[in-house]
């Protein structure tokens, strides 16, 4: 037997999806900017090719990162992806080795049992049949988990699972029916011919004991083929598009392409690579602290994919970057959200069927030109020449203790410095950036840049991680930008700053913009180890919570912020520290309101530990002795 009409739905679906994948890849490639195209070409024919293949194996098939997040969820994804891959691979080999001829069309491998019902009676054939049954059982075990997860997500270690749209559900049901229908079809055929291994053979012989197996098999082969065909046809317009997209994404990312600040083909690739696994929902503090469950990154990307108005979702986010850190696909979620914020008004497009299969690139509105500058009232200033500039930042002016601590550290270090915003400076521009107003932010950036250039400083020290991030990313400065923790560490390393050690227990809270946002994890902790006993917690480094005060979120009120702060404090003070240290004025202010533990900035702790400059000298100095009051 060479052909049967029931294979037609499968063939139609398969060739459709193969052609579609090629066409879509070409569209994506053409959408890349010219440097990105070169990067991808170099990456594809270069060293990163092996790296990409390895990552595809580890992430797209084994799902290593999901395993790390939750072993049961990882098993579910692995059994479906890796199990199915092996089933296809070994099925193709089986058809090639045991079939009538070599190099068969794909349907001969998928429906091998139908065309070779006598296969698998003895010898190597039986071993192979056992292997195929084992793989099918492996997939079915994962499928069982997936079905249970839909009603009871805790079974795979997830608190929440993603809500799906109707078309996603249809595609999901067709995917779910693929494997049971294969099981039943193979079982009936095995039952009728007395073949099959432990799974299909046993089930088949039991079913054929009371059912007409020969007649029953054929409808299930049809069902098997139909569900495969339907799944392939629906794949491009559902979340299952992540399967082909992720392959392309891995190659693009390993070639060095990054999201940047403009929407484009790479952003679109990332948007389609989201499998809605829901890990971003579980780690989001807005979810577990305030119960807001409709704004997480999975929903943002889903909204963009389906041309929904996502402006509310885009702005209701702390921009803490915890989802970025945990995304198993490695999608740059926070930069994508920034692009969405910048896009301003949403552009709802007509949803014809063709548009759903071949969507336009995400539209970013061009910046408004020709409008008057918003900050024309800022007059150029003439700062005095100096070596080190200290930029406290707006938030630090609300926490004067940090400012004063920094001044005493700078005085003790003896460097020539200027406190540039002593009487209140101009905002760094990041709050406007976070609000999507890039043009206005640029005005502030230009103003501050000019001020810094004129001062002739070689180092810019800031106390605020929010300022630090934008100084690093969006300013084009010829000075070394340091957060004050880095500056203090340099002073300690060079032996300029002499510090006492105190036996206080301290837990360090990594601010979002300094840690996940700018990658500064070690310097603050090294400074703390110099002066106090630093405790380790589960909320260290990348796992640090957001304090809740984030300027990134425009929508939540102060009650919700307080709830987030209370939960963050609970995570941070499990070891009952004497001081909860942080390195951000905003974190300090928010956390202090939520706890009885003393919250202090690293600068304050260091300033308290400074060894007073040589008190003995005062008494030997004749001039000083003259001034001592006579008791």
């Amino acid at each position, binding site marked *: 037997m060479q052909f049967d009409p029931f294979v037609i739905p499968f063939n139609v679906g398969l060739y459709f999806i193969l052609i579609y994948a090629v066409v879509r890849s070409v569209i994506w490639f053409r959408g890349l900017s010219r440097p990105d195209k070169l990067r991808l070409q170099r990456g594809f024919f270069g060293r990163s090719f092996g790296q990409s293949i390895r990552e595809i194996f580890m992430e797209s098939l084994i799902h290593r990162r999901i395993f790390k997040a939750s072993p049961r969820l990882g098993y579910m994804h692995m059994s479906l992806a890796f199990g199915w891959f092996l089933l296809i691979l070994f099925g193709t080999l089986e058809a090639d080795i045991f079939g009538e001829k070599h190099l068969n069309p794909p349907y001969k491998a998928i429906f091998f049992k139908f065309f070779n019902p006598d296969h698998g009676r003895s010898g190597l054939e039986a071993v192979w049949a056992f292997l195929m049954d084992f793989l099918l059982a492996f997939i079915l075990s994962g499928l069982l988990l997936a079905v249970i997860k839909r009603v009871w997500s805790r079974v795979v270690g997830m608190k929440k699972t993603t809500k799906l749209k109707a078309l996603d559900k249809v595609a999901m049901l067709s995917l779910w029916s693929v494997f049971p229908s294969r099981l039943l079809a193979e079982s009936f055929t095995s039952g009728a011919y007395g073949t099959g291994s432990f799974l299909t053979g046993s089930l088949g012989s039991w079913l054929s004991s009371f059912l007409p197996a020969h007649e029953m098999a054929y409808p299930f082969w049809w069902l098997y083929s139909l569900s495969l065909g339907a799944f392939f046809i629906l794949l491009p317009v559902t979340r299952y598009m992540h399967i082909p997209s992720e392959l392309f994404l891995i190659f693009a990312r390993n070639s060095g392409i990054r999201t940047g600040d403009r929407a484009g083909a790479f952003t679109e690739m990332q948007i389609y690579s989201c499998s809605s696994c829901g890990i971003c929902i579980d780690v989001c503090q807005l979810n577990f602290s305030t119960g807001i469950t409709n704004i997480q990154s999975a929903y943002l990307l889903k909204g963009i994919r389906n041309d929904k108005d996502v402006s509310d979702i885009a702005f209701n986010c702390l921009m803490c970057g915890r989802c970025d850190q945990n995304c198993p696909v490695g999608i740059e979620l926070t930069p994508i959200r920034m692009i969405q914020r910048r896009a301003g008004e949403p552009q709802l497009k007509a949803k014809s069927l063709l548009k759903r299969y071949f969507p336009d690139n995400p539209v970013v509105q061009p910046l408004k030109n020709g409008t008057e500058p918003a900050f024309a009232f800022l007059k150029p200033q003439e700062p005095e020449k100096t070596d080190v500039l200290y930029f406290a930042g707006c938030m630090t002016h609300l926490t004067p203790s940090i400012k004063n601590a920094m001044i005493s550290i700078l005085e003790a270090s003896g460097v020539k410095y200027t406190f540039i915003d002593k009487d209140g400076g101009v905002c760094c521009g990041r*709050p406007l950036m976070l609000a999507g107003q890039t043009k206005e932010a640029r005005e502030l950036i230009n103003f501050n840049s000019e001020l810094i250039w004129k001062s002739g400083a070689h180092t810019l020290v800031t106390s605020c991680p929010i300022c630090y991030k934008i100084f690093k990313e969006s300013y084009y400065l010829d000075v070394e930008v340091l957060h004050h923790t880095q500056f203090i560490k340099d002073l300690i390393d060079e032996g300029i700053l002499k510090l006492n050690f105190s036996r206080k227990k301290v837990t360090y809270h990594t601010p979002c913009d300094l840690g996940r946002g700018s990658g500064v994890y070690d310097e603050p902790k090294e400074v703390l180890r110099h002066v106090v006993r630093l405790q380790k917690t589960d909320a260290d480094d990348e796992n640090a919570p957001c304090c809740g005060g984030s300027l990134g979120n425009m929508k939540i009120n102060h009650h919700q912020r307080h709830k987030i702060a209370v939960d963050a404090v609970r995570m941070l003070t499990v070891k009952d520290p004497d001081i909860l240290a942080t390195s951000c004025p905003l974190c300090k202010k928010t956390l202090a309101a939520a706890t009885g533990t003393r919250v202090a900035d690293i600068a304050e702790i260091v300033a308290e530990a400074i060894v007073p400059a040589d008190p003995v000298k005062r008494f030997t100095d004749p001039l000083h002795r003259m001034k001592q009051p006579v008791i």
Partner: protein
Amino acid sequence: MDKFGFTILKARHINYDANDKSVAEYICEHEPTFRVCIECGCCTATCTTGNFTSLSLREINILIKRGELARVNENLKKCMLCGKCTLVCPRGVNTRNVITLAREALKNKFKDAV
């Protein structure tokens, strides 16, 4: 004799019927904390922009509630959204969102709005 012999300067007239309160309603609808503002002026006292020019969020809040929007539009674009006012507000008004919403609402009313 309905004014009992007193007069009010023209500049001090507030015509609640003629003034446009749609912006205030729009803000209250999307940011309910706008209602609890007591116009204490803490926001104005701490304002980063207020250091350089005459931006007063307190004044803006009052003008929005009165519906005198021309002056609001003129001043609102000066805000740098730094968020200090939100932190110092004793009533917990989400002032940053109030300003963003006001800008959104004014966009349709004035050509040169931010």
